[in-house]
């Protein structure tokens, strides 16, 4: 999907660590308000790619553009969620969400209502004053997502956010995320191992090759929104999941 200025443009990016290249000649685009998922085998450089888009890690070669501007470091308008929630243990739920505002240098009081709205959206009502260790893994991740969305970032990066959860919670979190995203429609770049997760959540799926990673295939997911549990039974869903799987499995043979 190429537009005049894509929300994110990864242009022929290579990242080498010591001797080995994690990512080589990787190129793809993310459209505005699009939900794009990157799937690929373990160690193919998905996390490295995400960190380069965030500006935390510079590419060895090639460029990353966010809305036409080259990325040289964190731009302050990007929310990120990692596999581990990494909430600050001395802060309550609401204070953890407001952390983003405090880091930006803003007055957290101004964002209190927004934080409460996000808490409601993420079905965390009643847990505003709880501490992280009093929350389940799934709840902690929801707090992490709210934290990432507090300042209405124009780009949300998610690095296997549900990878540490059990299958049932993981599935439920997928639907939660659809609900939360539906209300915000931020541009999302999502990384996962799970093919079903990718098909359920995204507009576009990019399949990466094994290390050194590059974009092997781009699939469009034309399932209608809003999506829910019934989508999983949609024959089109099954076909798409199959197509993604074929693309990944083809790599095992190569």
């Amino acid at each position: 999907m190429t537009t005049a200025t894509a929300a994110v443009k990864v242009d022929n990016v290579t990242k080498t660590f010591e001797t080995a290249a994690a990512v080589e000649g990787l190129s793809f685009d993310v459209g505005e308000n699009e939900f794009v998922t990157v799937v690929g085998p373990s160690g193919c450089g998905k996390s490295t790619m995400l960190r380069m888009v965030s500006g935390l890690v510079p590419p060895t070669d090639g460029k990353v553009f966010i809305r036409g501007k080259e990325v040289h470091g964190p731009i302050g308008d990007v929310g990120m969620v990692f596999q581990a929630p990494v909430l600050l243990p001395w802060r309550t739920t609401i204070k953890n969400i407001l952390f983003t505002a405090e880091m930006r240098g803003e007055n957290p009081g101004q964002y209190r209502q927004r934080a409460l709205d996000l808490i409601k959206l993420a079905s965390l009502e009643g847990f505003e004053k709880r501490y992280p260790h009093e929350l389940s893994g799934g709840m902690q991740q929801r707090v992490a997502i709210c934290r990432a969305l507090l300042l209405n970032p124009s780009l949300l990066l998610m690095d296997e956010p549900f990878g540490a959860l059990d299958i049932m919670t993981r599935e439920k979190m997928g639907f939660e995320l659809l609900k939360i995203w539906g209300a915000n429609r931020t541009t999302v770049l999502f990384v996962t191992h799970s093919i079903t997760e990718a098909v359920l959540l995204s507009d576009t799926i990019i399949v990466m090759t094994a290390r050194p990673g590059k974009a092997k295939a781009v699939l469009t997911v034309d399932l209608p929104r809003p999506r829910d549990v019934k989508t999983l039974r949609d024959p089109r869903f099954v076909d798409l999941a199959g197509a993604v799987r074929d693309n990944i499995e083809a790599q095992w043979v190569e």
Partner: protein
Amino acid sequence: MEATIGFGLILLAWEYGTAVVRIPNYILPVPSAILRRFWETIAVQAHHLGATATTTLIGLVLSLFVGVLLALAVIYIRPLKAIVLPGLAAFNSIPKIAIAPLFIIWFGLGMEPKILLAFLLALFPIFVNSVTGMGEIEPDVLDLARLAGGTELRIFAKVRLMNAVPYIMDALKVAFPLALVGSIVGEFIGGNNGVGYLILSGQFNLDTPLVFATLLSITLFTTVVIGGVVLFEWIVLAWRPSRRTR
């Protein structure tokens, strides 16, 4: 309950048992004699305790500032860690008590050498715990802070320092008694102020009740300070998992 009864029994044994075993007053005075002497000298006790408390607490506060700043330097300037940490450890194992007389020669008989001793003894535990508390932060947390636009100053105040509070509280429990020893030893060696001086004059005059009365003053002081630390922890560290059981 049992502890109070036990303590009461010990006091009774002490009060009446010593006469039976014929322990003279100048070796082990009875509790009533100690309390009487304490009450008689209450103004003197207060004065000297005030002097010791001042030097101890100034030394302690200085060790907090220097310890935290030094820890920050070591965290932000990588190569410094290999030099400072072993260097400070080596310096710490030199018994400062032994070089206390040198401090008296260098800095005189006033408060300065006592503050210096208190500071030097308290520094190492504060420094080491600050390095761990402020340095051992999940890299993901730092990344998130930077992504949101966090400056190093904000990260220091809201992440590093907050993370270090439990560690520094623990360090204070070790550093405070050390600082106190530093002050008292300084007072033993020179000057005419402080509980160390008071104890020494009690010894000189064979006024053992005075010595015990002064020990009572010191105990009251340490109880108040450690009590303060524990109270601070109670309020500020209410988030800790051990405090909140489901």
